[in-house]
């Protein structure tokens, strides 16, 4: 069993969405997380609010989001268990965030003991 982060990238769509749409989106994402939790493979997760986001650059300059040249940025991530990267990718494929054009889910393995030198 390995640990993965599924990182969701999307635009800040909150201001444009209707209350009904927000609720529907939230319900879908909860269902998605619950389907992973039902296999006892969900560890944790969080949303990352877009407001009051800052980017600190190498010259210590601090800017507000949006974050440079990319339109999509991290909206949240979940931490899961999976037997393989393939299984983690299957989890990612079911993520409702992918309904949005151009949105992505990045699958990243969390460094485990085998990486320890």
């Amino acid at each position: 069993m390995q640990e993965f982060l599924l990182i969701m990238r999307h635009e800040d769509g909150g201001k444009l969405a209707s209350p009904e749409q927000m609720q529907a989106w939230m319900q879908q994402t909860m269902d998605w997380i619950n389907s992973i939790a039902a296999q006892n493979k969900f560890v944790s997760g969080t949303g990352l609010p877009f407001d009051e986001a800052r980017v600190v650059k190498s010259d210590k300059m601090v800017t507000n989001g949006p974050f440079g040249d990319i339109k999509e940025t991290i909206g949240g991530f979940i931490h899961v268990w999976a037997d393989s990267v393939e299984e983690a990718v299957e989890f990612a494929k079911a993520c409702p965030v992918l309904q949005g054009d151009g949105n992505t889910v990045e699958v990243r393995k969390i460094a485990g003991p085998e990486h320890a030198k």
Partner: protein
Amino acid sequence: MEQQELIPHLFRTEFRKITVVLCKLFGIEHLETAEDLASDTFLSAMETWTYKGVPPNPTAWLYHVAKNKARNHLQRDKQLRDKIIPQLNNRQDGAARDGEAPDFINLFEENNSDSQLQMLFAVCHPSISRESQIALALRILCGFGIDEIANAFLTNRETINKRLHRAKTTLRREKISISVPAEKEIDSRLDTVLATLYLLFNEGYYSESHDQVLREDLCQEAMRLTRLLLGNQQTDLPSVKALYSLTCFQSSRFAARKGSSGELILYEDQDESLWNRDLISAGLYYLHHAATGPTLTKYHLEAAIACWYTQKTDTPEKWENILQLFDTLLQVEYSPVAALNRIYALSKLRGPQVAIEALSRIRSNRNQYYYSLLGELYRHINPELATGHFQQALSLARSAADRQILQRRIRSIAEGV
């Protein structure tokens, strides 16, 4: 993690509560701030509940966050703060200490149907165009999104945004107060409110939009807002009861007019066992109680007509009454649709020939309704002519549902049914 289902429409319902209460507190010129704070509240809910689960009391959670966001906003906006703090101190529920933004204890928990009712009068102010009133009512009082409003009106979001913008500018410029008008003003102001609610209901009931759920939502929202008027002593008037009765009768047929593949089923082909008896009883109750006072409104007459339509069997008595009611309705307020419907009632009572003659005498746009009525009237006396009229109607029909119905008619004539 536990599976938790959210209450349907929770965000929509709470959006209107939070927006209206904050707008009432801040003043109408800050309507957009109120909207933004409400939207931000749901964004926070989305970012939290999605991963941590829905809190045990979701509404209380939303109010708590909305209050914090409002408090933070006041801290940043001095002008607004100077205006709001004395107001809150008067309420005695959140006396501010020096230099601190006040607490909003019980801001949303208090009975807010008063605020909703007051906002209804502000939104339906005569200085705002009717189409903007409806858009604004759907946004502020019903919590609909721009896309949903655009979908219901079969238009795009730019058009709806423009309507909303114009309406908000007018609210600000005219400094329209969020209040129920004074006694002497109430009749004329109520007329505008009822006209908007009537249109809102019809928009849902007759809309060409394909989104059936959305359309029923519009009707239910119109009825909910009408109930707000019924719930207030000052506005619980016969005309309001009449309108509510009408909407009860109409919506009683929602299930029956929907076919298995979503197509529209016409009145005469409906299975009346699917009519909602509770709504029909409510319609009767309110129609009965509307029959007081000196004024006969078009809502009274339309409700009475709708009431006769809840009796499916054709009897001379039914059509005699409907015809008389249409005669009076046309005197109270002429409308081409009512004139055509009167001709149909006439044909039921005195036969198609008399109706065809009567139709030739009225001024009516040669639209699809005119031609489909002609087709209907000629159906049994001259099928060939009837088909021609139905085809004419078909070429003018805009919605897929209407076209389907007309095509079915043409087919059934061809098959000699």
